[in-house]
């Protein structure tokens, strides 16, 4: 009966290959998402428009302005002795305004001598977007106060991601998302489609064991996901320069476990959903959204209110993302993520068990 299993796998692959549009989408989603999150969407703040107000263009002022102008994060959009600050911010011409005191040089010298004075520089920031404002003021402060305003009190070291590239943070999360999307959504839709079309009934009346029908469905999607995994890893390594200093195999291993888990999830959805639309909705609303919000991919889990804190423990993507971060960014070996691996394997078995049971019950 191995022959009929192979003819099933062949059939499923044909379904996928014939539907060129869907296949292209499935293969391109990871590339698009990776590039989007890697380059276009980032929590870094780039190209801040800064207007400068300086009544006297003294040597000290010039130095600070030069530093700002030469910094890739800032664009100096105005340099004047006085401007309408409110108008500049309101019109959106500037995101921030840096105001130098008339007596800038004098104040700096006094400060250096330890005399308490009023501030020499003022930042006025458009805080309508709090993210930009927070990061931006921090940047500004760093650039402006580089040498004179304060001595280095702290010694700051950012490990693993010294340039704070947001791509590093996103790649593991994106992987968690894409595999759920493709494995769970595509398998559930393709199983439900057969129910909807009535072909499932014919298959069930045939001597093929139901478990074989399901396995045959999963194999092509598993293969596609492996292709996606390869694409993602290549983009991450060569386009986004994600370190992966401990080699790629530990990442592949944990990803394969996660793929199996996603397939089981897809099967579970297919047993609940009665139509393709419902399957899509469940995958998108009930799974994708909580996954984005609770996996720590975008919003730190630590920030959740106490009531919601237990939720991320049951979100598989959270464990995968966490492990992946350790493996990809920190360059830890597989032995460092054994806890995550164990949890994911456990979840996979539970999901597989439940969904196979439910699938069988449904048939009766």
């Amino acid at each position, binding site marked *: 009966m191995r022959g009929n299993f192979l003819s099933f796998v062949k059939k499923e692959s044909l*379904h996928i290959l014939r539907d060129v549009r869907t296949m292209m989408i499935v293969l391109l989603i990871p590339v698009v998402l990776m590039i989007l999150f890697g380059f276009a969407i980032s929590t870094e703040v780039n190209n801040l428009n800064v207007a400068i107000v300086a009544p006297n263009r003294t040597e000290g002022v010039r130095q600070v302005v030069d530093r700002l102008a030469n910094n890739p994060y800032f664009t100096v959009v105005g340099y004047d002795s006085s401007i309408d600050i409110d108008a500049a911010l309101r019109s959106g011409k500037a995101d921030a305004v840096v105001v130098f005191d008339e007596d800038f040089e004098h104040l700096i010298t006094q400060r250096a001598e330890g005399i308490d004075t009023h501030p020499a520089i003022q930042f006025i920031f458009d805080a309508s977007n709090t993210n930009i404002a927070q990061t931006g003021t921090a940047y500004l402060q760093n650039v402006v106060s580089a040498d004179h305003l304060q001595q280095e009190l702290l010694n700051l070291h950012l490990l693993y991601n010294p340039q704070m590239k947001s791509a590093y943070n996103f790649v593991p999360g994106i992987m968690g998302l894409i595999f759920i999307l493709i494995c769970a959504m595509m398998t559930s839709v393709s199983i439900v489609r057969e129910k909807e079309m009535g*072909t499932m009934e*014919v298959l069930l009346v045939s001597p093929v064991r139901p478990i074989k029908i399901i396995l045959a469905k999963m194999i092509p999607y598993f293969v596609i996901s492996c292709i996606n995994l390869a694409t993602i890893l290549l983009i991450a390594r060569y386009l986004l320069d994600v370190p992966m200093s401990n080699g790629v195999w530990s990442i592949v291993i944990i990803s394969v476990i996660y793929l199996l888990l996603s397939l089981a999830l897809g099967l579970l959805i297919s047993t609940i959903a009665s139509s393709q639309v419902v399957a899509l909705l469940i995958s998108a609303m009930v799974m994708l959204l909580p996954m984005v919000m609770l996996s720590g991919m975008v919003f730190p889990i630590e920030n959740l209110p106490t009531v919601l804190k237990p939720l991320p423990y049951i979100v598989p993507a959270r464990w995968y993302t966490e492990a992946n971060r350790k493996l990809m960014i920190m360059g830890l070996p597989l032995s460092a993520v054994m806890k995550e691996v164990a949890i994911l394997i456990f979840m996979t078995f539970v999901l597989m068990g439940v969904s196979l049971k439910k699938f069988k019950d449904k048939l009766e």
Partner: protein
Amino acid sequence: MNDYIISVRELTKCFGDFTSVNRISFDVQRGEIFGFLGANGAGKTTAMRMLCGLSYPTSGSGTVAGWDVMREGEQIKRHIGYMSQKFSLYNDLTVWENIRLFAGIYGLSKAETERRATEVLERLNFSSERNTLVGSLPLGWKQKLSFAIATIHRPEVVFLDEPTGGVDPITRRQFWEMIYEAADGGTTIFVTTHYMDEAEYCTRVSIMVDGEVRALDTPARLKKQYATESMDEVFRILARGAKRGE
């Protein structure tokens, strides 16, 4: 070994408190076209599912093609053909790929598949459509192909669940010619339908009401018994007494 291909006694299926099929007993002879009628909700589908090995009876006994419906569901599946009311080939596969898939499911060898596919396609005048996607065929053709594929493994009995639903009268006529042809070849046909003119084509007809078989005979004798001109009348007289709604 008797000459009955299907033989059931007191077959019952309950879902919780609800008795969907209530102690039905009947025999189907080898090579006959057996019409299995009943209003919606009468328990037809449940009965058919038990005969196809899809669902286990709650009580009673029966054999299909010599296999026990209680214990040998998997063997039954191997020896029957099935065509459902929904068109159930794959639209995104070609005619040949569909044939190959189902032949593969029933364990036909490559050479045998090739031989039978050629024969079937020739019989249907489909040879030129071998590599056409099934989705682009007219419904009537699909239906015929469906039947041909349901019988590709030469089953002893074929179950047809409302095979002509939504098909125009001419195609229905052609479809019934195929059924006759298959029956002449010795295949037993077990068919459900809502069209009473089709009931007239059957060798014998059973009518289910409220989970029980209320009548079973040749169309001619049933009409005589109920003193009516048509099967349509017979069906209405019997179904009028139904307690179950839709």
